[in-house]
């Protein structure tokens, strides 16, 4: 773990997907970042963002890169993680409409339906109210997963049309939308400050 003089490094899982956009958002709130593709990269970071992309692609690459087991161990130790879209799917305890062989980290007690809002032509933007933010957050949903159940250990931080879209369990935050695609860095800022990653 970093000494008090060194800023903690937030990893961005860079196997596939929108990792570069997350790095830009984290940099805009003053965080130090590192792309994570190997177990060595993971060992050098103190928190992790799991970006949007294709969850089936990432699930396969988590195994071929040797990241799955060490990442599962870090999740069990309570490493702060922010998972968006595909990241949310990989962290959920239950995946509906996934592939039969698709299994993730089962770290957040939610059931998500892959592409639950429909195909790309149904992808949409909407303003949502977020607990802890004074004004609405403009959220972009792309072939988004839909949360169909949230367990009692899960705190829902935002809903859209009555469905949870931002939630937290312990040190893990998950979103079905893409805060990295809009210029508003408030959710990345909350992830950094809530988990004490600024020192």
């Amino acid at each position, binding site marked *: 773990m970093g000494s008090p003089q060194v800023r903690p490094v937030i990893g961005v899982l*860079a*196997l*596939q*997907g*929108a*990792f*570069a*956009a997350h790095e830009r958002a984290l940099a805009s709130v003053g965080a130090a970042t590192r792309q994570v*593709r*190997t177990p060595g990269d993971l060992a050098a970071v103190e928190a992790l963002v799991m970006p*949007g*992309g*294709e969850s*089936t*692609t990432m699930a*396969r*690459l988590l195994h*071929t*890169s040797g990241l799955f087991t060490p990442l599962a161990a870090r999740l069990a130790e309570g490493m702060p993680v922010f998972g968006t*879209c*595909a990241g949310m799917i990989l962290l959920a305890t239950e995946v509906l*409409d*996934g*592939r039969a062989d698709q299994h993730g980290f089962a770290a957040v007690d939610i059931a998500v339906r*892959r*592409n639950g809002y429909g*195909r*790309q*032509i*149904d*992808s*949409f*933007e*909407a303003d949502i109210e977020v607990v802890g933010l004074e004004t609405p957050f403009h959220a*972009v*949903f*792309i*072939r988004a997963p839909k949360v169909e159940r949230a367990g009692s250990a899960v705190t829902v931080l935002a809903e*859209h*049309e009555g469905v949870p879209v931002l939630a937290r369990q312990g040190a893990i935050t998950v979103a079905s939308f*893409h805060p990295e*695609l*809009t210029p508003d860095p408030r959710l990345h800022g909350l992830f950094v400050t809530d988990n004490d990653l600024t020192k």
Partner: protein
Amino acid sequence: MTSESKSRITGTVQVKRGLAEMLKGGVIMDVVTSDQAKIAEDAGACAVMALERVPADIRRDGGVSRMSDPEMIEGIKAAVTIPVMAKARIGHFVEAQILQALGVDYVDESEVLTPADETHHIDKWAFTVPFVCGATNLGEALRRISEGACLIRSKGEAGTGNIVEAVRHLRSIIGDIRKITQADNAELFQWAKTLQAPLPLVQEIAETGWLQVPLFCAGGIATPADAALAMQLGAEAVFVGSGIFKSDDPSPRAKAIVEATTHFRDADILAKVSRGLGAPMTGIGMDDTVKFAERGW
């Protein structure tokens, strides 16, 4: 084309370009059957391109090449959970309307098919479905973006298994972007004239240092090393057409190209995944080749 209900807006530039963001670092594979689509998904493809013949066969067979049969596209959509793209002919906006009605996730207005209009590309702003278009240089890329394309790919030379044209196109596009970021305001007017591209788009590149949309590589990728070359040159993801299902053993090659695209700067991993893949597709030289890349304007 956007549409707005009480609590959601669809078809915006943000959601169209957003899906391209999600494909970054990935491999989009050409498939002609549901079985191939499943092999591609199992191998880690981030999307598939549904078409009736891969470019190598289009090249061999000749004749007019058109949008695929909707039944075949629907079969592939049903077989996989990843995004499904499909090709429309350049300028053939009705083929694009049909693909949108089928619910494909991206339309490729593609030079690989026979052009339907020798002057006009599709007005892509009129659609809810996003479009990807090919380009050989920055001017072409910016003209396509001005028409509403949300993703640009190099044209390369599809169906040849020869990466040389894709390298030429990527170097041209990215090299000119680098030069524009060094240009002063007066020079930007000249750049817009030379590129035959809208001035505001040229000025935006000067400010941001990159295209308005993601830039992927297509046309000629046959090996893991080809994919990593494209990525190191600055492409943000790769399309592999004939290179997978025209090779000896498609599944291991597909998996290797996926890993090479993720670990594109790690030569040890590239060496590991390049081993024992069997023969790649037989490539062809450029001298006597019909150039698909010259289609589009």
